[in-house]
């Protein structure tokens, strides 16, 4: 029963069988469904006592906002969190899988997980799928060797940086970081800078929007500040509510029975087989 939980292709690695089928279908004229992407702004920075990660909360499906308040900062370990940009399903599945592997590893070694372990597990997975797993991640945390911040690209390459941004709003956020980042920021300064960078992405990039999520990780402690800032509240909500004209059918209650109610009385004995 445990085999069904993880369907491994018999020879290992990605099975390209369905790609031929998909090509054939597109040639015949079928439009492939679009992915639910997180056109996103995700950022991370290292401050004096640890790492701060930030993300917006808009998930888009083409030009439509599919989720106005999604969670893009994923739990990996008590001391490691990961922001994800790209295809929402890919980021969630990959972070969930690596989080599970890290937990098992913690049991075996009786030690806290290291960020470099999470990094290596993620990049190995992404590389083996040759960029088809569209997950661009900002991974940060604090372990025994100190605070670390990394970016991971869908093809499997990684960077180690003091401050990082990813997603469609990354340029807007990076401009804020490049102007205002300095080493040894305090917690409040760091949170303010991260919020500013995310807001810059929210307001200047169409793919990012809604609220700001922040996660502060320090040695032995993490704080997940969900919806830390809500710069896009829904204004002009009519207090009267909607008003329909009096004739509108929708306000009438009419019950139409679809079937005749028939009373059944039991007569005689049950059939003998």
């Amino acid at each position, binding site marked *: *029963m*445990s085999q069904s*939980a*993880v369907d491994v292709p018999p020879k290992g690695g990605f099975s390209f069988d369905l790609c031929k089928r998909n090509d054939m279908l597109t040639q015949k004229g079928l439009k492939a469904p679009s992915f639910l992407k997180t056109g996103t702004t995700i950022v991370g920075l290292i401050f004096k006592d640890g790492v701060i990660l930030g993300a917006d909360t808009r998930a888009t499906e083409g030009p439509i906002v599919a989720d106005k308040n999604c969670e893009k900062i994923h739990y990996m370990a008590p001391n490691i969190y990961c922001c994800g940009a790209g295809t929402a399903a890919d980021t969630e599945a990959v972070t*969930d*899988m690596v989080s*599970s592997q890290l*937990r*098992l590893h913690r*049991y*075996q070694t009786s030690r806290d997980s290291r960020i470099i372990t999470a990094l290596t597990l993620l990049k190995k997975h992404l590389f083996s799928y040759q960029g088809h797993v569209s997950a661009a991640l900002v991974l940060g945390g604090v372990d025994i060797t100190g605070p670390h911040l990394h970016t991971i690209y869908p093809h499997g390459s990684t960077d180690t940086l003091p401050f990082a941004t990813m997603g469609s709003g990354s340029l807007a956020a990076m401009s804020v970081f490049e102007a205002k980042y300095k080493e040894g920021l305090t917690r409040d300064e760091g949170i303010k800078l991260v919020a500013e960078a995310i807001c810059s992405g929210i307001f200047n990039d169409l793919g990012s929007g809604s609220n700001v999520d922040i996660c502060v990780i320090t040695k032995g402690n993490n704080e997940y500040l969900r919806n830390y800032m809500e710069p896009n509240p829904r204004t002009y909500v009519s207090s009267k509510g909607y008003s329909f004209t009096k004739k509108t059918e929708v306000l009438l209650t009419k019950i139409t029975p679809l079937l005749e109610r028939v009373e059944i009385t039991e007569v005689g004995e049950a059939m003998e087989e």
Partner: protein
Amino acid sequence: MGDSQYSFSLTTFSPSGKLVQIEHALTAVGSGQTSLGIKASNGVVIATEKKLPSILVDEASVQKIQHLTPNIGTVYSGMGPDFRVLVRKSRKQAEQYLRLYKEPIPVTQLVRETATVMQEFTQSGGVRPFGVSLLVAGYDDKGPQLYQVDPSGSYFSWKASAMGKNVSNAKTFLEKRYTEDMELDDAIHTAILTLKEGFEGEISSKNIEIGKIGADKIFRVLTPAEIDDYLAEVE
């Protein structure tokens, strides 16, 4: 005995209907160090002797009681290396369950899956049964639970159980001392007294291990200092 002709191959029944290799595995368990478990009204305690082969062994590096999940722990009697393999497999199964259902694995499910693994090794070619019996202690939505799993793959839920060298004395002692409404601390005292019954030499925090889980659903192995406190209370 007449069974001896059939005792070489695991997958062959003897005329009396037994799988003799499993009987031998149970003998291996029976010659292992004593371990026991008691289910209290508000938790479970498991304990074992920790007799090291020489005083030169660093006893801090040996831990016989292991976590399988944050709320399930286990101890064994029998062959240590076999126990390590089973613990590894069980942890992986618990993790796969959590990943699939996003629910911590219930104790009965984990016991069933571990028992299935042990049974597979009694019906395959080229392998031998595990030479351990496990005591699995856990606390989930159904409350505190204690299970014993044997090399054959059979498992039972126990209110109190013992295994290993001193099993008959220990079980008699437990039968006399067990009460349904026992609390966790009483259970720990009873566990220590039961271990003391057949203990060779002086019992101390360095040669026993105790693990407990209470209503907080967190399985913990007691530190030597805590064991010393309980030992002092028992005196």
